[in-house]
């Protein structure tokens, strides 16, 4: 089973992006689609500020301060998020469920944080890869990338 990723440029770097639908239980369940990039350097899976605005996610709870690209940002916990990734055959999906996903928000009145939060895409982190035993293949030279169950 392979999940194809699209290798495309994001802020001067080529990154592998997935195609994923999300279901988020809030007061009214949110359904939507996101295009997160797979980042083995991120310990957590996070939803970007742009995607949070687009999906109208309401954040609550105590945020954790994390650093993205050297800038401090806030990551709010979002519980029991369901993700479905399009598989190679384009006829099936790979179902995933994460107990906690972060939602990125800037620190108010902090210029560097506002810039960083606004320019960071959603991320599939190492937590999801480990939970579902997915290996990343990333051939940047030929722009071929996919996730594969191991």
């Amino acid at each position: 089973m392979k999940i194809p990723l699209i290798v495309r440029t994001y802020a001067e770097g080529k990154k592998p992006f997935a195609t994923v639908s999300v279901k988020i239980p809030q007061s009214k369940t949110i359904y939507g689609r996101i295009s997160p990039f797979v980042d083995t350097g991120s310990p957590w899976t996070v939803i970007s500020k742009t995607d949070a605005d687009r999906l109208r996610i309401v954040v609550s709870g105590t945020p954790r301060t994390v650093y993205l690209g050297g800038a401090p940002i806030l990551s709010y916990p979002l519980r029991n998020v369901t993700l479905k990734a399009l598989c190679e055959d384009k006829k099936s999906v790979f179902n995933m469920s994460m107990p906690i996903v972060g939602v990125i928000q800037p620190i108010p009145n902090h210029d560097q944080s506002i810039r960083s939060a606004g320019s960071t895409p959603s991320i599939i982190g190492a937590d999801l890869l480990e939970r579902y035993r997915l290996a990343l293949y990333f051939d940047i030279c030929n722009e071929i990338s996919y996730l594969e169950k191991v």
Partner: protein
Amino acid sequence: MTKNELEELIELQNDSEFLKKSYNDLRKRYVNQYIAIKDKDVIVHHKDINIVLKKLKEKRLNPANILIEFLHPKDMVLIL
């Protein structure tokens, strides 16, 4: 997953492929702006994400199903 949901995921993947192929041209035209892509076309663009979302709603489109991306300037490097 229903056939509709599958088709919507395939549409998003096609729009992501379009963004990949057209990235340099799109960046020349819409640098420092958010662009919304549907059916391999830029349907809304603006530097303010809230205005992009408002314009999509005016077009009776659900932003949750549309690829929106910020186009960084060429000298902007993001090391994550």
